[in-house]
């Protein structure tokens, strides 16, 4: 009896094993590929994605095996790397830069059984989702701190390129600062590169020489924080906690956290419940956080920031709540209204309070 039942059990297990893809029963680790746009380094955009990859490995253990390729140019090479992952049995591919979008789309069509996730783009498909984070939420909080800490009332911002994501950050920073200190102005210098420590440093030095006593950057290196430390002014980190590059200067940082999202996504794919979505997470989803606040920030300001952070986490406050007025004095959002994601995604203006002009305004 027992023997027979056992036999029946193992027979049905064998039938099941034959019916299901091998990976599920044989406990073979699901292979996951990551494509990085820059070297991992020790701070920055790619570094945060790689931290998340390690978190994913730590939380799912032997169920997954991850591989990555760093420094992949956003051109023809990207398609080959993404395709190679898919063709060599990787079940999920995370492509972590905007310029990979069209290549992911093409490979996703060729490999319908592989799941593709693309960061910061706007296309998706049946097996191809995209994800991004509301970095501007952290920027608003940075702005509040900057507005409270500045004496010169001039804030400096080093930007890479005037794309919507960067403009959201600059505008949120300005709105945050103006909310507590209406007289501030934000000056922006574009360096036309995501990673160029030399130019970033030069831009920061110029801003500081123009009187900025709080600076920040939307670029990939730690040069601006280091420059601030050297000149004795304040700075905010971005992507990663950059406090070790400027212990005195570094007030806090808007940091990126993809780990939970990666774990959640992989679990959903493994369970067969994943569906292509456009994910845009913020404080509420744990995808954006603030690095520990510098003790130089007065307790009252710390409490003010904490309260705002709780509101962002609870979803009861949106940095882009009207009235929002652009540089030309035109009202872009009426009082009380909240900017929707489509308008945010297409942002192409500076708000009032930014002193610099936007290049290429038509």
């Amino acid at each position, binding site marked *: 009896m027992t023997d027979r039942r056992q036999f029946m059990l193992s027979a049905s297990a064998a039938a099941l094993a034959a019916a299901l893809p091998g990976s599920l029963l044989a406990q073979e680790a699901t292979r996951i590929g990551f494509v990085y746009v820059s070297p991992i380094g020790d701070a920055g955009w790619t570094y945060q994605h790689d931290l998340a990859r390690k978190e994913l490995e730590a939380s799912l253990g032997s169920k997954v095996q991850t591989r990555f390729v*760093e420094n992949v140019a956003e*051109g*023809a*090479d990207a398609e080959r*790397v993404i395709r190679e992952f898919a063709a060599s049995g990787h079940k999920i591919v995370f492509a972590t830069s905007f310029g990979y979008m*069209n290549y992911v789309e093409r490979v996703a069509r060729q490999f319908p059984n592989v799941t593709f996730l693309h960061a910061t783009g706007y296309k998706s498909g049946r097996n191809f989702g995209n994800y991004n984070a509301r970095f501007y939420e952290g920027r608003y909080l940075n702005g509040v701190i900057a507005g409270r800490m500045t004496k010169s009332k001039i804030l400096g911002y080093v930007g890479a390129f005037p*794309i919507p994501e960067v403009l959201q950050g600059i505008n949120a920073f300005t709105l945050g600062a103006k909310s507590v200190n209406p007289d501030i102005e934000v000056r922006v210098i574009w360096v036309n590169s995501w990673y160029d420590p030399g130019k970033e440093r030069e831009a920061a030095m110029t801003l500081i020489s123009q009187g900025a006593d709080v600076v920040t950057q939307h670029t990939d290196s730690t040069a601006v924080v280091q420059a601030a430390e050297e000149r004795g002014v304040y700075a905010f980190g971005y992507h990663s906690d950059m406090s070790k590059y400027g212990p005195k200067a570094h007030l806090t940082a808007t940091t990126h956290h993809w780990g939970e999202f990666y774990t959640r996504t992989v679990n959903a794919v493994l369970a067969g419940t994943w569906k292509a979505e456009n994910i845009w997470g913020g404080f509420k989803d744990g995808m954006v956080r603030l690095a520990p606040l510098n003790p130089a920030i007065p307790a009252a300001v710390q409490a003010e920031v904490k309260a705002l952070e709780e509101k962002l986490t609870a979803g009861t406050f949106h940095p882009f709540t009207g009235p929002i007025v652009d540089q030309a004095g035109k009202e872009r959002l009426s009082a009380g209204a909240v900017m929707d994601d489509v308008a945010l*995604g297409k942002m*192409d203006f500076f708000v009032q309070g930014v002193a610099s002009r936007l290049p290429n305004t038509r």
Partner: protein
Amino acid sequence: MLRLEPRTEASRLMQWCSPLLAATLTLLAGLAIFWLLDKDPLEGLHYFLISPVKDLYGVSELLLKATPLMLCAIGLAVGFRANVWNIGAEGQFMLGAVGASGVALYFAESDSALILPAMLLAGALAGALWAAIPAFLRTRFSANEILVSLMLVYVAQLFVSWLVFGPWRDPMGFGFPQTAMFHDAALLPTLLDGTRLHLGFVFALGALALGYVFMNRSYTGFKMRVAGEAAEAARYAGFSARRVIWIGLLSGGAAAGVAGMAEVAGPMGQLTDKLNFGYGFAAIIVAFVGRLHAFGILLASLLMALLYIGGEQAQQYMNLPSSISMVFQGLLLFFLLGSDVFIHYRLRIGRARA
């Protein structure tokens, strides 16, 4: 005692053996590096040299990656032979991409079969035009073409950036720096179904053939060689130094421009601000490893492409850092320069006889 003794005549044998020697030494050094990194050296070489070409798709990718290298390198070789040092193929590549994109965007509504030839022409002309700046400054004001052509790379990059952030930005592209995707009539047809290998590869082979005929079989090519090897003799023979400079730079610019055209009309399908792939710079290595000869450049560009793709695979399968490709390229150039010493010198054991 080991010593180097000058040869009375450059060794033709060493001229061709030197790249082979360099390739062998690169391999050996590569094995040592894998071993030092605690990786299985044979596995390392497998992923570097064999895995990328394990199937037809892999071979097609190798040829695709080699295409811009071939084009840029053969154009540069024409100038290099005559001691005209165009270091700016990278910028001429970008301008070629811009020229071709301009045609594709302007005729976005048209399905005419003439669009691709027009893009090819526009790419070549735009690349040549960019190279004409250092040519003009050199012939008119004796400005060093190395500096001017190199600096123009950065100008080209900013020009591309301005275009894709401004007038050519895709209105449906959410403000990202990119043009609209090209329509089918503006895309190069693929040569093999299911791969990305496109007609641009044929352009590259054509350019190599043209380069061979020009450099090795034509009188102008001969004059350029003489100008490079013995400038005084060339002047005595009445060859125009200006003409040599113009031809050297324009052919480099046109070929790099075609490479840029093939990149946007091929695997990219649009113009973006991320055009700084380094093909124009890598092509300098390719041209020298290939001995400034069409056939050599063919082989050298394949080798270089293999190092790029092998480096990706070494990361993908062995968790090696991305710099591994650069290390291999550096080794190759280092050993080549080292081996080249033996073209003009021979190694002797023992003391020199008086």
